[in-house]
């Protein structure tokens, strides 16, 4: 079953609100809370975009990103990485690994929606 947005985030409250605002913006959502689950969801659910937290249990967001970019089938999948304020090194690492864009926590909901929309190429709508 294909979904629009896959959210990989382990903080329940953040996940809850992300799920709410993205669903409300009109997309179908699947959410996972660790890196392993993120990778299998990417393969099985074929999301159109991944919203990926850096700090994930089992397998870090970086490792998930590296795997996504290493697999020919998912290489072009847009990935929006959630980093924490002050973690410039995280951002550099994610850039090197091929993240498409970043949102820095704490963020405004509207910015997340806007960025997902931009990466999905739905700006005109």
């Amino acid at each position, binding site marked *: 079953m294909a979904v629009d947005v896959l959210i990989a985030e382990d903080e329940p*409250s953040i996940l809850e*609100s992300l799920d709410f605002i993205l669903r409300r913006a009109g997309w179908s959502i699947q959410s996972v809370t660790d890196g392993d689950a993120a990778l299998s969801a990417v393969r099985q659910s074929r999301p159109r975009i991944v919203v990926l937290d850096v700090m994930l249990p089992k397998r870090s967001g970086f490792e998930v990103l590296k*795997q996504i970019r290493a697999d020919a089938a998912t290489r072009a999948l847009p990935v929006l990485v959630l980093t924490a304020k*002050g973690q410039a090194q995280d951002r550099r690492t994610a850039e090197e690994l091929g993240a498409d864009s970043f949102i820095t*926590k704490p963020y405004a909901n*509207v910015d997340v929606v806007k960025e997902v929309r931009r990466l999905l190429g739905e700006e005109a709508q």
Partner: protein
Amino acid sequence: MRAPIGIKISSRRKSLAISQAELARRIGISASYLNLIESNKRVVGGGLLLRVATELAIDIGDLTGDTEHRLLAELEEAFAGPVLASSRLGPPDARDLVAKNPAAAAAIVQLHRAYTDAVASADDYALRLRADPLFSQLLHRILSGITAVRSGAEILEEVPDLDDEERSRFVRSITREARSMGDVARNLIGQFDRDYQHRRAASPVRELDDLIFERDNHFPQLEAVAEVLRAEIGQISEPAVTEALEARFGVTVRKSAERQVDARGFPGQYLFNASERMMWFQTSAVAATRQFQLCRLYAELAAGDMIEAEASAASLTTPTARRLAYRALSSYTAGAMVFPYERFLVDAESLRYDIEALRQAYTASFEQVAHRLVTLRRPGLSGIPFGFLRSDPAGRLTKHFPLPGLLLPNSGHACPLWAIYDAFRTPGAVVRQVVRFSDGSRYLFLAKSAGRRTASFADRAIHTSVMLACDVLHADQTVYATGLDLSDPSADVPVGPACRLCTRRECPDRQEEALAPGGGQDAVRAPLVPRGFDRTD
């Protein structure tokens, strides 16, 4: 404003047990005139002052106060400072103390300087705290909490058609996060209280560390110097450098079996006798050591000023720190001579960072190659980012170059589970290890221990262990990942930075209690049967 000369003449005279009449006789004036001078009622100068100084066997500068002027100014500053202000000591007291007991005045000034330095370094410590894993974990939790609260609050505020269930769900979530942030904040404050007690003054070694860290362990000027020096010598080898040292600096190289000591009585495997222009090696020094130290000597003789210019960075505040920096940077230059940057990077990449293979290609030691790998940080032409650690057999870390993201303890010891310690059990063999920290970050560690070659049966050579660390994301570019499934984290060794800084409560190998947030109780070495040692009532 100077300390009055009269008081100094008088106290110096008394300390030499000379009577006023006697001193007056010797310098050819009346006792009553000397009395006026000593009570600062007459000015003394010229030939008379010179005679007084001679008779009292004291430097004229000490009497006139020129040498004490600065001391006096600093002492007045100390008296006026916030710590001593309540003692109500003023300029007259300062003059008096400088005149009567200059050594005590100097001691107070020294204390005052140490105090101002300590205050100035407080900011540095605040910055350093950010690298502490416990703090970063707590801060991460706060940031997550803020993210959730902000996002939830925006939904409550901006979404007009929330149903009751949704509304109460987000209110609950905000309440929960706010409460948990309160707990985290309390922990954080407790942590600051604890940390304050454990603070130490910045040492020269730390200053050097900061300099190296600030420059990302890459010194372009010294790379350029090394390139010039290498061009002078030609292909680097022990005979070539020896020949160049003799031709350009008249330095001879000698080897002998018996141990020698340097001018300060420090024994070593090598030393340079500057007056005889002779470099000595004990016969136990291996070829890699000789080649490296000869390059270092060549660099110090040919480019000492340029190395010193790099070592005179503003951040180094003491002569000791500058001396340590000079030594570290002359070794850096030697490393850059032995391992030319671009060629070495190409070789390292084509050999997949195989340190043993690189040693063969460059007649170098494991530590020399490992150290050089850390310095391949030229922007636009860099190798894998590595961190570096060296340990003695007591577990004490004796050299370290940090890696962004990975906290290598500055001093003391690291986590006992790290490969750097495993390597002591298998001297000469490279030990590799994939580790995972409690924040989920993963690194490849590779370590090897070795001892210096002994000179005789009685010679004890302690072993040291050298470790390189790289992010597991880069590990697949190294030979050390061969045969490892890096994507499978199930065999990772769960580690921390050091027990004091580690949050893994479940670790069976914990040797020391963590700095507990909020001053929690110690849980290691508890009695079998619980007893109430922690009751405060």
